């Protein structure tokens, strides 16, 4: 069987820290040219997975193949294919942007000439060219992140790994980074990114894997994930006078959120829930000020998927 179309294959990846299974039998593959998202809450095992995929951690079980090259057997060759932006990885603050890029380029074996070209190209595109000679310690967080990005792609990798790349960036820096990622992808670079921002995964990724407590709980296109979790549909309702939240904990309602004077009732059957809401309003002699149904949200789907179980109905303020 030919797997030429695959940029990344992870099979049965498992990582133990002591007795903690940080990653538990994770298997997936990423197509060439795909943007693949790894979505999960804090401590789900995203960073641990990315570290195994990039050769930093040796898995207890399982293997990783990058562009047909077994990572474990041909570490250097496989790493040549990759660019990595670690979660908290910074560049050297004592060095300038130029020096940082030159250092990275040399590790990848680029010629002096090529390093010069790429430095100019990347720093220009990322708006750092003017500051290229200043030590990185004088850079803002957004500038550092952009430099970090430049370092990861100086050698034009086939596969780029990003661990929560837009974490802590403002809208503008975030957009610049997203544009860079998309542009890189257009040129054929496969992207693997982790995030806990569902909107970002939704907007950026062709496929999304959801991980919780080390286990893959879902893997599909964002739209498919969306439609497969009908129970994340909701009703937004407000009453006058307000009614106690717990009187609305019936039947299909799995969760109630209050925001301002509105209550959001998550339900897998909006039709039945609307009838019950109307009944409750009558019993409580309250007027329904507004009532609106909302489609399923990926965000809710994500929370429901990654939570173990949710007995009865939960009330969230």
């Amino acid at each position: 069987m030919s797997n030429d179309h695959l940029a990344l294959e992870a099979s049965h990846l498992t990582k133990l820290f002591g007795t903690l299974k940080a990653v538990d039998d994770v298997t997936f593959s990423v197509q060439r040219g795909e943007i693949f998202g790894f979505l999960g809450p804090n401590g789900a095992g995203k960073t641990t997975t990315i570290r195994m995929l990039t050769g930093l951690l040796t898995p207890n079980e399982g293997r990783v193949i990058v562009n047909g090259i077994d990572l474990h057997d041909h570490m250097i060759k496989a790493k040549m294919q990759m660019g990595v932006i670690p979660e908290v990885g910074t560049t050297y603050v004592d060095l300038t942007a130029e020096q940082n890029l030159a250092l990275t380029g040399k590790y990848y074996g680029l010629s002096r000439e090529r390093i010069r070209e790429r430095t100019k190209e990347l720093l220009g595109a990322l708006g750092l060219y003017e500051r290229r000679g200043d030590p990185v310690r004088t850079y803002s967080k957004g500038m550092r992140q952009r430099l970090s990005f430049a370092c990861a792609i100086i050698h034009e990798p086939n596969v780029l790994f990003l661990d929560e790349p837009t974490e802590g960036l403002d809208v503008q820096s975030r957009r610049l980074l997203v544009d860079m990622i998309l542009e890189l992808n257009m040129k054929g670079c496969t992207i693997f990114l982790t995030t806990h921002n569902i909107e970002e995964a939704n907007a950026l990724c062709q496929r999304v894997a959801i991980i919780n407590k080390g286990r893959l709980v879902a893997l599909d296109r964002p739209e498919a994930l969306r439609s497969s979790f009908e129970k994340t549909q909701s009703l937004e309702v407000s009453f006058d006078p307000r009614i106690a939240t717990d009187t609305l904990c019936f039947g299909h309602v799995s969760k109630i959120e209050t925001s301002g004077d509105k209550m959001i009732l998550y339900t897998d059957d909006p039709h039945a829930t609307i009838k019950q809401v109307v009944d409750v309003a009558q019993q409580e002699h309250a007027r329904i000020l507004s009532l609106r149904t909302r489609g399923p949200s990926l965000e809710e789907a994500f929370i429901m998927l990654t939570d173990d179980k949710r007995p009865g109905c939960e009330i969230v303020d």
Partner: protein
Amino acid sequence: MRSLIDTYFLRGIAVTAEKNMRIYYRKAPVVIFGLLFPLFMFVAFFIGRELEIDLFFPAFLAMTLFFTSSSVGPLITPWEKQARTFERLLSYPLTVGTLILGDMAAGMLFGAGISVLVLLLGVAFVGIGISSVVLFLVALLLGAICFASMGVLLAAPASSSPSNIMMLSSLIRFPLIFISGIFIPLGELEGLRLAVSYASPLTYLVDAMNHAAGGPTSMHVAVDIVVLIVVSAIFLIAATAIQKRSLTKGL
């Protein structure tokens, strides 16, 4: 495939060494423990005493080499872990062996450079004579490799706290200078104190330096050289093994 590894292996060492030289030579602990400290020792022990400086110069030079070469290594890995640069470094096409040798090379060049400088000052101002330049260079190189490797070994179990490792390394380095025939020539020692001296690798460097300078020696120079080589190899192998195990500690 083989040649690819070889190329990247060697290049990786060179680039790692260059990086370390650019960044870590300027760091305070390197300057303090690597430069100021031997100077203080020199002032404290030699100035104002009735010691013949040219007699003790080879030993002093060995001590300088010991301190300077071993002061860079302990700093690098913990510093990189604390500054969060280590994870990115590990994602580059390199192996733990590359990193260890690159860190060692930076320490070695630092130690050898400073020691040559000290020697030149000694020759110029104190009239130090060297009877065998070749032997001196061999001793200098082996000593620099040996103690730079020791420095790297000290950093190998590091998590992300440079100060802890600097403390540990001082704790280990200081006693060594008192048991290695620097202040009291080996010939004047006996019994347990002599046995302890033989356990210190620095003793063999002091002896080799004395051979080169025509000072008082107590072993065959071949013994000195073999011991320095073997100890260097042990340090490097141990450093690699430990570094592999504690690679992601403190990330």
